[in-house]
């Protein structure tokens, strides 16, 4: 009776401690999708199997060490083999492994079934941001780190969501199955949001799939989980899960914005407009390498301020921004940025920080070049 009570108390203490671990964020989260809950349960089942095995194995070991100790006159048994025991200790782990594989495989099958999705989102990893494209909806944008550089350099107090905040979050509807298609423009990245139980490598040249169906509206944060270069820690993921009607309204608004942006390609832009727009694009896209004042970080990232090659060669400059420079860290921006953004940022870099070339590059000209 007493032994039973001790075991019961021990068991309760263990279950209690696992609840504390969950509440403190030491454990993996239960998450906000049916699948994330299933993955959590799987994790806990296997965890408790490991606990039981650990207790039994170490219990037998320590009991034997104590009970048959040398000082009490214990003698070692000398025998070569015991086939029965060997078969038992081989088949028992085999059965445990098969027992764990059955529920794990059932969950894996669900994870790998992105069929019947109501919305497709292409997620592209880039050094160092995420690009989201709502396929067939004419909505696409880049999601950049929004934490001010001053906080990173330690000149300002760190905010609540330090390095986990972006300028444009991925907006998703709840209660709808959303399929993700992952790829990368440069190196391996991994799109990871613990609350959604999605952690997927993005591989250049390949498209991989995953999906979510979120149950709770909210803001879910994650990070790149595959070391991808110097700013690996500076490309967080933020997902805004919203009610379905709110999402539909948001999507329409973004479509209207995209349509307006497309109209902007045809008209002539004033120098001031281009400079203003270009400064914003430069800050979110270019400044992490070429630095906020265009001073660069040679030798990897050349200076733009006072760059003779850039000032002298407007066509070369356009080509570098649009097509990148192979063999260097400079990526092609032909798909990341639209013609207006490309024209604006080229104009900005040709006229900021004393690069007073006076060149205003028009979006129409860039659009024509992209179409070639």
């Amino acid at each position, binding site marked *: 009776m007493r032994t039973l009570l001790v075991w019961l108390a021990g068991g309760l203490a263990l279950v209690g401690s696992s609840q504390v671990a969950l509440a403190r964020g030491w454990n993996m989260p239960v998450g906000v999708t049916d699948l994330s809950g299933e993955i959590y349960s799987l994790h806990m089942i296997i965890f408790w199997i490991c606990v039981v095995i650990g207790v039994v194995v170490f219990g037998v070991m320590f009991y034997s060490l104590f009970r048959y100790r040398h000082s009490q006159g214990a003698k070692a048994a000398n025998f*070569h*083999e015991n*086939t029965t025991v*060997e*078969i038992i200790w*081989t*088949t028992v782990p085999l059965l445990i492994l098969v027992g764990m594989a059955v529920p794990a*495989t059932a969950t894996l*099958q669900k994870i790998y079934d992105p069929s019947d999705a109501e919305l497709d989102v292409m997620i592209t990893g880039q050094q160092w941001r995420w690009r989201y494209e709502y396929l067939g909806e004419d909505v696409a944008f880049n999601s950049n780190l929004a934490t001010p550089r001053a906080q990173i350099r330690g000149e300002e107090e760190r905010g609540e969501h330090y390095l986990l905040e972006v300028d444009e979050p991925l907006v998703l509807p709840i209660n709808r199955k959303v399929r993700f298609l992952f790829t990368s423009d440069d190196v391996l990245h991994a799109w990871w949001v613990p609350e959604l139980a999605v952690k997927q490598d993005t591989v250049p040249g390949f498209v991989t799939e995953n999906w979510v169906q979120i149950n709770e509206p909210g803001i879910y944060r994650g990070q790149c989980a595959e070391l991808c270069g110097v700013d690996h820690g500076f490309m967080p993921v933020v997902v805004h899960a919203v009610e379905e009607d709110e999402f539909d309204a948001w999507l329409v608004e973004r479509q209207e914005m995209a349509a307006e942006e497309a109209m902007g390609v045809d008209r002539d832009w004033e120098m001031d407009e281009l400079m203003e727009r270009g400064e914003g694009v430069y800050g979110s896209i270019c400044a992490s390498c070429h630095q906020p004042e265009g001073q660069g970080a040679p030798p990897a990232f050349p200076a733009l301020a006072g760059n003779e090659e850039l000032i002298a060669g407007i066509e070369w400059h356009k080509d570098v921004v649009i097509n990148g420079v192979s063999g260097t860290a400079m990526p092609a921006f032909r798909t990341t940025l639209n013609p207006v953004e490309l024209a604006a940022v080229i104009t900005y870099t040709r006229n900021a920080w004393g690069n007073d070339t006076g060149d205003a590059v028009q979006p129409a000209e860039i659009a024509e070049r992209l179409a070639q």
Partner: protein
Amino acid sequence: MWGVIKSVLAAFLGVQRDQQRREDFERGSPLAFIVTGIVMGVLLVAIIALVAFLAAG
């Protein structure tokens, strides 16, 4: 033949009786064990593939 199959099954599990091992080594040629091993290896893969196929529905 049954002895060979039993020995190959024991090798799959990684546990063998010492007495049986001695008997196996008295046979002289390892050919029977190699052929049986390959056949049963293929059979094992086929069974696992079948189970996976049935489970995937």
